């Protein structure tokens, strides 16, 4: 287990996090969502703590807490007065090693997770579209599955599925402790050795690459859902940023794509706003871009937009791609590049205001296998990106063949649609 400490002495508080290099991408078919369900169950007890007792103890310390699961990682955190650090390290190391709960607790909590899925995905047409878009874009790579899991997998999940995932993946060699705030490094190290240093380790399961095969042509899907506004999202396969020194060509292209996204969408009145949402014949009410190039899995460059009244999703799609073509042909200006770099530099100063976001960055970088000073290096690298590099990636990665398009087809609220009935046996009695 690795320990990362970031002292920040401005206020007598600290944040303590445990990060695990395991997320939904490490699941297998049939038990999708188990990484996230396990995250919920970590609050349900240990050999010595009753269900809910963990949260009550953290509250008694004056702490705030939560946890998060992504495709790439799972994390748990407490924000506490810094003189309570030892208490939460003791609690967290206990549940890391000794999580334990009766089946009855699982039966209740899995219903909570299903409600979470209904709330965040099933009643959110654009989230539903994103879920289907990922499922279509990726065929072999585990990114094709939703983090929260498919409903039928949640219906079929058993307590032992969750326990097995815990036993497989929760081992100190697959985790890092991040502490930031009003703390002394040597003291934190001593505490970490005391509470985490002697936890038993075991061998991790082999991580199969499950590499995504090359996409051989355009894929297009439609998603029907109750909505007034249409919506279109374009996912282009993209290179990944895998390291922040000794860059490969792919890493350099990924960096240039980050800059391209900022030029498109990084500030009010940037290119996409100007081209799609302004003027008498504007096609969109909103438009955005995102370079999703860091992660343990395959990367995407996303473009999306909401058609203006009287305009179609196809017109928005065309306009988004026209903006890419404009960069590919005409490049970007030095002024635009300087602007987005200025913003990044300022944002690194602002980020220091939040101890929580400092800890999140350190944890996120650890998940990627990046060095501790990855942010400084990344900023330095971004400053070296040239207009020619941005133009080159706009010309290289935005053809038809590596593209998946998802269009939301709005349906009237009263249209008949398949209703998500509870599966037999899932209803509570």
């Amino acid at each position: 287990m690795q320990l990362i400490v970031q002292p920040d002495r401005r206020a007598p508080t600290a944040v303590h996090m445990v990060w695990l290099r395991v997320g939904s991408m490490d699941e297998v078919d049939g038990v999708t969502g188990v990484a996230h369900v396990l995250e919920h169950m970590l609050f349900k007890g240990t050999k010595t703590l009753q269900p809910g007792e963990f949260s009550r103890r953290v509250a008694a310390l004056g702490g705030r807490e939560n946890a998060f699961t992504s495709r790439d990682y799972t994390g748990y955190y407490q924000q506490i007065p810094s003189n309570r650090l030892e208490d939460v390290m003791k609690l967290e190391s206990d549940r890391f090693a000794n999580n334990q709960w009766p089946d009855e607790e699982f039966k209740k909590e899995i219903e909570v997770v299903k409600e979470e899925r209904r709330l965040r995905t099933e009643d959110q047409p654009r989230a539903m579209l994103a879920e289907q878009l990922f499922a279509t874009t990726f065929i072999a790579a585990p990114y094709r599955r939703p983090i929260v899991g498919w409903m039928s997998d949640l219906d079929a999940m058993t307590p032992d599925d969750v326990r097995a995932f815990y036993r497989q993946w929760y081992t100190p060699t697959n985790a890092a402790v991040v502490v930031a705030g009003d703390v002394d490094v040597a003291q934190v190290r001593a505490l970490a050795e005391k509470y985490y240093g002697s936890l038993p380790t075991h061998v991790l399961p082999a991580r199969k690459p499950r590499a995504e095969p090359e996409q051989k042509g355009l894929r297009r899907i439609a998603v029907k859902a109750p909505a007034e506004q249409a919506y279109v999202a374009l996912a282009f396969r993209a290179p990944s940023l895998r390291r922040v020194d000794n860059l490969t060509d792919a890493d350099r292209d990924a960096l240039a794509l980050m800059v391209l996204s900022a030029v498109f969408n990084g500030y009010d009145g940037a290119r996409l706003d100007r081209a799609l949402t302004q003027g008498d014949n504007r096609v969109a009410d909103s438009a955005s871009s995102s370079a999703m190039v860091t992660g343990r899995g395959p990367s995407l460059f996303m473009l999306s937009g909401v058609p203006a009244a009287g305009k179609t999703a196809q017109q928005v799609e065309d306009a988004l791609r026209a903006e890419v073509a404009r960069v590919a042909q005409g490049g970007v200006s030095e002024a635009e590049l300087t602007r987005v770099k200025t913003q990044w530099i300022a944002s690194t100063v602002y980020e220091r205001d939040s101890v929580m976001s400092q800890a999140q960055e350190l944890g996120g970088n650890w998940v990627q296998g990046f060095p501790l000073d990855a942010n400084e290096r990344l900023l330095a690298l971004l400053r070296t990106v040239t207009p020619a590099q941005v133009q080159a990636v706009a010309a290289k990665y935005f053809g038809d063949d590596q593209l998946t398009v998802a269009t939301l087809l709005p349906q009237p609220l009263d249209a008949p649609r398949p209703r998500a009935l509870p599966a037999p046996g899932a209803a509570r009695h």
Partner: protein
Amino acid sequence: MITIKKIAARALLAGAGAVFYSHSAWALLPIQHWTEGNGAKVYLVESPVIPMVDVQIDFDAGTRRDPAGQSGLASAVAMMASKGVKALGNAPALDENGLGEAWADLGANFEAAADNDALHYTLRSLTDPPLLDQAARLAARQIGEPSWPADLWPRDRARWSASIKESLTRPSTVAAHAFGAAVYGGHPYGVRTTAETLARISVADMQAFHSQHIAACRAKVSIVGAVTRAQAQTLVATLLSRLPASTGCAPLPPVAEIAALTAPAEQNIPFTSAQAHVLIGQPGFQRRDPDFVPLLVGNHILGGGGFVSRLTNEVREKRGLSYSVYSYFASGLHAGAFTVGLQTRPDQAAQAVQVSRDVIARFVAEGPTEAELRAAKDKLIGGFELRIDSNKKLLGNVANIAWNDLPLDYLDQWAKKVEALTVADVRTAMAKKLQPERMVTVVVGGKQP
């Protein structure tokens, strides 16, 4: 934030036997307060470690002051602040894109928004002197001299109306609207913006609203960051420099209070969705209510305390009915609503409503247990520093003190007030404000397709 470090040092000296509130000796948190010659009230916390500053300027120009039939006016005024500024001396006029570029070039952020009570402008900038000066000058033009481009309003109104229409396809929005109408009657807190109310708003209305409400003498300015008092004074003077000089502000007309409910109301609105959205509540209390602290603590125990509250325990932990269940008081200048909310599979909605009602009624009747009150005190007092451990959080606290005319030592006294509460204090305060037999219940969902 050297001061806060000193507080921590003192806490350690107080020793393990100290009562809980001794480690937040908030008298040492120095909020400097003064009134400028133009009438603006300024509240400053010097936080020198990071070379940045956060500013919030509040005006009594929130949505409660939207004229009847023109709901959305205050928000439209806020929105138009970023649509362009007039020329000023050698500085040319800027359109919306010019403003977007200018802020990006400064590495700074400037925003305007209206909530129920206030229209506020916020600025976050680096404190490098030339940068901060430019940022303040640009913000001043947007605060004082927007160009009110008439051709952009129809576009933005269309976009806004479309997003309202889209939001009405969500059960959460439909529930919130029905709940607001039922709890607030005709009070502005519950009036919603629609395509029709937006259609009645002209740019001239915005200009009139702006000139009536946005004046230096009405400004409450909260500042947290690496600036001295002298620098803060310069900053405030610059930020308000493009507002017309005024000879004193006549009081704005009072806004009516929210009427108490006289009878319970229940609305079941059929809606095709995977979940039913449930809201239960009634008018709450004004922020200036002397019982604010016992009510805060009472709500914390009832449904405000995250994973540890009665509602979470009964609805989520024991029964698995909802991912999210909560309660809160939206206290403002008026008695903003007490709201309990949850979302659940439609066939479970009736059960969830019953469980929630039972929890509310029992809590109002009996109050918390001694153990619950102790746990709430431990959490709130022990975690008090977490409310002020960044400039952004500090700014929120300072702006709260400024807006509600709270004493400057409010934070200093807060923990002592919490610690002093008894079970009877909490029970009495909650019972005075909440009438479970006269609450509004809204359930949106459960329509069979």
